């Protein structure tokens, strides 16, 4: 009896995987073989699909009614915030599937910071082997004003542990000048403009 229950469970799991196009060939055959003359399998399939369609259709409607969730927290030194990503996947769907009515209002730059935007989830950029990890490696010791340096793959402390404020500010000015020149010379390429606009404010 227990074997039968396990078989049943495996079949239902195969059915679930088939909904997502993730069932193995053999499983597809088993499901189809079982579906012949067994309306309960087809009924379960129909219910799984119903749930799936309802989630996708209802998700958009619901989000349009709900409050905008808060913007994602800046990633700390560590993996991308998975919980934040999961919580915000719904918000991404809304933006992507909303058509019409969105007007590109020019930003009103005022003295106060811009209103946080509607949250957008990670777009889930994945490829085999990709690990969404933090970039660079600023540890606590770094935060005194220097950066962890890398030569190829090796990491080494070279810079002084502290840097004078005047040096920092001058460097910031030159880095901004460099970024500005890149943008001017880029004939409209995206990344140089992104770097310039995203450049952190002077400390």
């Amino acid at each position: 009896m227990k074997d039968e229950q396990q078989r049943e469970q495996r079949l239902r799991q195969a059915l679930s995987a088939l909904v997502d196009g993730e069932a193995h060939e053999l499983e597809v055959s088993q499901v189809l073989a079982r579906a012949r003359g067994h309306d309960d399998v087809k009924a379960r399939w129909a219910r799984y699909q119903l749930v799936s369609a309802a989630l996708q259709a209802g998700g958009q409607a619901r989000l349009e009614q709900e409050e905008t969730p808060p913007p994602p927290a800046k990633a700390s030194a560590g993996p991308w915030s998975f919980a934040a990503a999961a919580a915000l996947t719904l918000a991404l769907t809304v933006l992507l599937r909303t058509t019409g009515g969105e007007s590109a209002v020019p930003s009103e730059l005022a003295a106060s910071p811009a209103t946080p935007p509607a949250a957008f989830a990670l777009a889930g950029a994945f490829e085999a082997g990709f690990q969404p990890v933090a970039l660079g490696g600023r540890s606590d010791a770094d935060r005194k004003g220097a950066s962890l340096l890398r030569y190829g793959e090796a990491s080494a402390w070279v810079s002084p542990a502290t840097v004078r404020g005047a040096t920092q500010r001058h460097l910031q000015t030159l880095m901004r000048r460099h970024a500005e020149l890149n943008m001017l010379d880029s004939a409209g390429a995206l990344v140089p403009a992104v770097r310039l606009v995203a450049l952190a404010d002077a400390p």
Partner: protein
Amino acid sequence: MRRRAPLALRLCLGGLIMLSGGATGAEATAASGRAWLEAMAAALRANAYEGVLSYARDDAVTELRLVHGHQGSAIYERLSRLDGAPKEMLRRGDELFLLGQEDEALPPAAVPRVQHPVTNFGDVPETYQVQLGTPVRVGGRRAQHILVDPQDATRFAYQLWLDEETALPLRMTMNYHQGAPVEVVQFRALAVGEEPPEAAFALAGQPVHQHPVAPAQAALAHGSEGVALEALRWRIAWVPPGFQLLAEVADQPVMLRLGDGLATVTVFIDAEVEDEPLAAQHGPTAAVVRHLRHCDGRPHQVTVIGEVPVGSAERIAQSLHCADPPS
């Protein structure tokens, strides 16, 4: 509404399909990768699109909004930070504006121009190997993965994920050679469609400090004869493979622009400041400060800033020397 890709893009991709049929595997792959990148460059110019993208480097993530369109044949673009202090780049044809808070104003400076655009994936130099990765899904879209490999550790590598349908880049990273990413640009949301109205590119009201940046056609700036001559007496003995001198401005500070079409380095040579020596890597951008003596014996500060590993920036700085033989 699905926008048809411009003819140039379709021809590019059509050529891509033909190429992969005829050439040898490796050649076809390399040619195909470059064709994809050319198609991307064309797509970024020709399409009208709007999106939100995240920019991540070190441990910071910034979100930006991008609106890109055309007025007539001129490209109009608006890129705005969505968090932190407000900051915007506004491009209206040949006009460029950097919009920010009062205290971010930069003094206008002579702007050196270069003959060939930088960060131009449409023309990747031969010093990089271009490979096609496997198609994957990015943000729910099928995307073509492309690797641009410098083949040594003196420069960064790039990876791009191009939307299969539009060739627009959905995600781009800059990586250490065979190593971890230093920078990730990724669209969180993207829509391609009708041209935005002109109002989308209007200059915002007060209070805003506008810093009009000189248009692309500005001529190469030079100081007086004496200063220009002095600038030319500097020589750089080492640059990363493929790098060339793109432009120089004989001013105070002297600015030398180096690049290979993908990455750029600016060398500032200044006789009037003395910062602490340092070497640092801020995400994709290395910064090195060293002090050298010029031909006349005066100390100069050399600041090397660029999108190269810090070791390369250090090496450039150390290789700077006086052109005159010692007397």
